[in-house]
């Protein structure tokens, strides 16, 4: 039973200074509730929207990166529905019929999947405004005695990306989303790691069956879970001889299930019409050319460059280019430390671990790339051991402490003085006569003795020298 999935993705344009139709700031994550508001985004009587042109520029970047056809005229329309999060009871959006056109149509994104590449076609890209944010004190609307509305989100710019139903598994959807999120990060449209940065609605069906729309999926992990849940639900219905009903369902993240949205008594009619407050904006070839010539390097181009210029594996290149700040960090550190492969290894396995433990945001990274580079050169020169490096890396990354300073003040330099090491080995041999006898018979037992020596120096002894001295003394 082949599954067919298409998605509607809403990306919040959080990397512009002001909202889509007013000059209120976009930093609503950190602002006190309902502070970033004005007559326009509150929909006060008499207020009028004025387009923020930098959003159009960002949307143009996205359309160019996805090879979408940009309409010559940008027409905003009103989409009407009554809902408490919508101050005007209509949303300013775009539409694709009766003289109304989407911002861009067509295009594609190739996703690498299972060693091969698959093309996901884009149906359209639209610019629209975000409604306000409703929250319920008890989490569940039915259990809450009241609800709270934060209008800081009202009027935030959104880019809506609608794909064709070209995906066949939750893994493909995830791969597509990850690539798009990386892309919008590179295009300076959206910080995908901020809360609420994107939302997904998925149209899911089993070949031959009716289509179910699952709304309100807010994270990558939930996307996979929601799609898998829904596919299983539909397969079970079909296996049991039933047929899937065409409907809209909501993803309940807390319970991990999709639930049917309360059946409407009527078919929703959005009464779209062009917004008379916003005259059509001509998108000229000059404008597009200008945006095109100022496009940042695209993530997949950068990944290829990392493979070719730095000899990284595809996996390493993909991880390092998954966020622009990380790729920038890597290339900046390379200026201070010349071994790309060792640097990539440290960043992927240790550095990212530290960042993710602290929420995954680049904002926790305080240490500059040169300091990480310096650490690696200390390791290469035998000043510190890998163990010490890993031990002090968090202080360098999170607290911007100077590696040299840490090593000096904490006495962490590697002990490579042979006479010191020989004395320590003699001590260990005296204290562990049985282990020495074992090691003479069984070469594998040598590690116990090495461990004892290292423990005496709290890891500071140069491991290669310790091994060499222990081996020699065992032979004597």
């Amino acid at each position, binding site marked *: 039973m082949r599954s067919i999935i298409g998605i509607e993705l809403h990306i919040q344009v959080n990397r512009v200074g002001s909202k889509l139709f007013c000059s209120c700031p976009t930093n609503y994550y950190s602002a006190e509730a309902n502070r970033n508001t004005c*007559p326009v985004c509150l*929909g*006060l*009587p*008499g207020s*009028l929207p*004025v387009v923020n042109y930098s959003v159009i520029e960002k949307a143009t970047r996205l359309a160019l990166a996805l090879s979408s056809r940009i309409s010559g005229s940008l027409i905003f329309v009103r989409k009407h529905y009554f809902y408490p999060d919508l101050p005007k*009871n209509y949303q300013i959006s775009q539409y694709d019929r009766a003289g109304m056109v989407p911002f861009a149509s067509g295009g594609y994104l190739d996703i690498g999947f299972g060693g091969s590449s698959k093309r996901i076609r884009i149906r359209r890209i639209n610019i629209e405004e975000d409604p306000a944010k409703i929250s319920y004190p008890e989490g569940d609307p039915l259990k809450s005695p009241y609800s709270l509305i934060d209008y800081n989100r009202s009027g935030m710019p959104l880019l809506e990306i609608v794909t064709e139903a070209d995906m066949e598994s939750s893994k493909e959807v995830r791969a597509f989303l990850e690539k798009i999120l990386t892309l919008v990060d590179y295009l300076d449209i959206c910080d995908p790691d901020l809360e609420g940065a994107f939302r997904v609605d998925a149209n899911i069906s089993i070949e031959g069956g009716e289509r179910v729309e699952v709304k309100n999926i807010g994270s990558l992990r939930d996307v996979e879970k929601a799609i898998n849940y829904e596919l299983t639900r539909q397969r079970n219905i079909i296996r049991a001889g039933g047929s899937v009903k065409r409907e809209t369902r909501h993803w309940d993240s807390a319970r991990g299930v999709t639930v049917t949205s309360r059946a409407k008594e009527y078919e929703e009619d959005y009464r779209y019409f062009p917004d008379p*407050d916003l005259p059509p904006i001509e998108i000229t070839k000059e404008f597009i050319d200008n945006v095109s010539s100022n496009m940042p390097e695209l993530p997949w181009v950068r990944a290829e460059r990392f493979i070719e210029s730095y000899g990284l594996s595809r996996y390493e290149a993909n991880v390092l280019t998954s966020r622009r700040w990380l790729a920038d960090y890597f290339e900046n550190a390379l200026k201070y430390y010349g071994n790309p492969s060792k640097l990539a290894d440290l960043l992927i396995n240790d550095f990212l671990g530290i960042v993710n433990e602290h929420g995954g945001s680049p904002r926790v990274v305080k240490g500059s790339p040169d300091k990480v580079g310096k650490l690696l050169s200390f390791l290469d020169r035998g000043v510190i051991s890998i163990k010490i490096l890993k031990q002090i890396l968090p202080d360098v990354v999170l607290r911007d402490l100077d590696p040299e300073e840490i090593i000096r003040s904490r006495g962490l330099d590697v002990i490579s003085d042979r006479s010191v090491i020989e004395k320590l080995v003699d001590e260990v041999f005296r204290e562990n006569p049985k282990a020495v006898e074992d090691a003479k018979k069984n070469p594998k037992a040598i590690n116990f003795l090495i461990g004892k020596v290292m423990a005496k120096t709290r890891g500071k002894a140069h491991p290669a020298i310790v091994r060499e001295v222990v081996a020699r003394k065992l032979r004597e």
Partner: protein
Amino acid sequence: MRIEHIGVAEYIENARNDPEWVSEYYSVLFERIGKVEPEINSYITLADPEKAVKNAVESAKRKTTLAGLPVAVKDNISTKGMKTTCGSRILSNYVPPYDATAVRSIKEHGGVILGKTNLDEFAMGSTTETSFYGPTRNPWDLDRVPGGSSGGSAAAVAARIAPVSLGSDTGGSVRNPASFTGTVGFKPTYGVISRYGLIAYASSLDQIGIIGLSVEDIALLLDIVSGEDPRDSTSIAYPSAKSFYSSIKDGDRYLGDFKAVLVSEMWRGVDPDVNTVLKAVIGKLESNGLEVTEISIPEIEYALPTYYIIAMAEASSNLARYSGMLFGISKDPSGVDWVKYYSRIRGIGFGREVKRRIILGSYILSEGFFDQYYLKALKIRRLLKQRLVKVYGDHGFIISPTTPITAPRLGENIDDPLKLYALDVETVVANLVGGPSISVPAGFAGGLPVGLQITGPPLSDLDMLALAYRIEEIIGSGKTHAPPLG
């Protein structure tokens, strides 16, 4: 002091020469308001007299452009800290936290907001009878309506309880009451005055306009309130190096420099007395050198239905926001879901005519009817605009009655929407085309004022005001005739 003949120009001259005169003027003005207003009901909210005088005197002392000029403002134009109701119960407690751009300009130039004037609820009407605050009465005959929807703004000026006022004109709402009250009502080209802060009825047709006692007064205030506004994407900078005021005062322009045309369809169904008054005036203008031709534009018959389809569609959308959430009246929401809550608020908050237009407008925009009504109306609007711009180019300004009749009695039209809508037959053309239009007093029929309307292509405002000024010179200004009140 008698203030019946003091318009904007006279006020500014006196106030700048003698700031003390301002306080005298204001005390006479408020005394007159106290006497006349209870009969007329032109204001919903009045400014605090003490504060108003204080502001005005200070403005005059500072030699500001308007020197404390009191301006009455239609109650659908937002005034910071002053209730703005749209004549509706649903906004009966709404105090805007911001000024409309036009209001801000007036204040910045030293004007004082005298009060907020009555109107048909959300500007939907032509008689000022649908207001939640009761009807306004015509100063020339208290049993008659003042026209609408800017009836309060026109009646206040006619009754000399405001020297000048702002109104709004979506399908004739400034010109119609000007015609019924013997005042001058001007609707500029769409975009010349910012709509920011004007509470929308039909956004593509709405335009703030000015009602005054003379063309000169209109031009003076237009210079203050016009201009491109970064807060209104549909606003424009009027392309002229000269001010409106200095342009109309330009002595080099004569009536003979202008051309005018009578469109026969616009004279059909006109009351015979109105027709007689206006034809006489046109004859006088011709004898003074105005070139007048006559043509037929059969398509103009479609203007009224086209107008109502577009206006109702846009209104149904613009009025969606009134749901008792962020502003306006509210109720305890406990125990009901939000659909019920909205229905309750809208049910009690809106009057019959507003509900009628929201329902019709929602129908027009619905799936399946959208193409049939809305798109077709837009197409006719486009064709009409093309046709009229050509007519203007070939024949000059269109001259017509502003309304086919003089002011009807209260209650005469209110229950028959079709009769009510027909009052707009002459005026809607200007809104559909987006050009300027003015109504000037042209005399009396049966003791009631008659208005002559001039309509032109977009951006002909300057020429139109110049022509109206010359006409006024020949047939006399409305300023000289005050209704017998007080």
